[in-house]
């Protein structure tokens, strides 16, 4: 065995390589996003995921091997969700005054997200398992996978649809809100959180701290309400 292939065998078996590659891909993607002045199309998640997918494909690395390294980053999603309590606490006076619009927008947005996605895919002839995997696509991955599993969907496909929705929302929110002439950062952030969970929230924090706070609230509340309404709505389609 050559020295190079021996090194590869060692690296491929340790979590070090793919943990480092995940951070490298993101560091480059974030630099690009900064250089493009946070242009919505230059989305750091999209670029990093594309780069890593290419690396995994080129090296023939299975996703499970990759995840052994990347799980340390993935794990931080939990503590980061808890950390949303800090901007919520700091901006509480602003949030409390907006409690009525928050609840109204949450109900409307949550229903729209589920019914429009399932309705369109159903019109295209998607089978039930796919519809069940798609229904919770606007909520954060952990909740969405639980909902999908409970309905007989495919949780890992749901995770892929959730991430795609997140990236789409993060790309669309700024140009759409500008085109609609909406300047209220509370509404813009809240919409990003309802439609595209944590990736939308990450985008909202890039734009404005108040938008980020409202996106974080939307992410938590939408996870809760979607877990309640999706099983009821999907019972119709069975």
């Amino acid at each position, binding site marked *: 065995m050559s020295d190079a292939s021996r090194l590869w065998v060692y690296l491929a078996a340790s979590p070090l390589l793919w943990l480092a590659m995940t951070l490298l891909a993101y560091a480059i993607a974030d630099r690009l996003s900064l250089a493009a002045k946070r242009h919505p199309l230059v989305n750091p998640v999209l670029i990093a995921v594309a780069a890593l997918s290419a690396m995994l494909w080129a090296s023939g690395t299975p996703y499970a091997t990759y995840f052994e390294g990347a799980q340390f980053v993935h794990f931080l999603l939990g503590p980061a969700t808890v950390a949303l309590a800090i901007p919520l606490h700091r901006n509480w006076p602003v949030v409390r005054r907006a409690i009525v619009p928050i609840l109204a927008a949450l109900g409307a947005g949550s229903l729209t997200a589920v019914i429009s996605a399932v309705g369109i895919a159903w019109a*295209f002839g998607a089978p039930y398992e796919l519809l069940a995997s798609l229904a919770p696509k606007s909520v954060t991955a952990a909740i969405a996978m639980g909902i999908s599993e409970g309905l007989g969907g495919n949780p890992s496909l749901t995770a892929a649809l959730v991430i795609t929705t997140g990236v789409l929302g993060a790309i669309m929110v700024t140009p759409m809100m500008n085109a609609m002439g909406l300047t209220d950062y509370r509404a813009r952030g809240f919409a990003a959180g309802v439609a*595209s969970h944590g990736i939308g929230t990450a985008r909202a924090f890039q734009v404005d701290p108040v938008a*980020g706070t409202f996106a974080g609230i939307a992410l938590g509340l939408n996870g809760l309400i979607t877990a309640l309404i999706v099983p009821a709505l999907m019972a119709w389609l069975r």
Partner: protein
Amino acid sequence: MIEAILILLVCQLFGEALARGLGLPVPGPVLGMALLFTALQVRARLRPDAPGVETLPLGAVAAFLLANLSLLFVPAGAGIMSHAATLAEHGAGLIVALVLSTAVTLAVTALVFVKVAGLGRRGDAP
């Protein structure tokens, strides 16, 4: 620093324990967020002169995590490729559903928020 990380982990731990113990449909970290938020509100009530949380290590750790929130979705995102077959088979319908649904949800949520907020403001005026 260690204490700040510990606070986040303990809140998540209690959140997970509550969610699983009571069979709630909410994920542990979201309950953990609610717990930490409640604790911060109580702290601000009891000690109004205490320094703001943003000046504490907890505030610094939270700011660091939230500033790099995008990174945390990358490992899950790299899994999309393993569903290439399903996505190719139902690609058109799924892509149309995801794009349209996301756009409509963004518009409806933001418009309802702004309209209802506007109603409230008009209601306040004499």
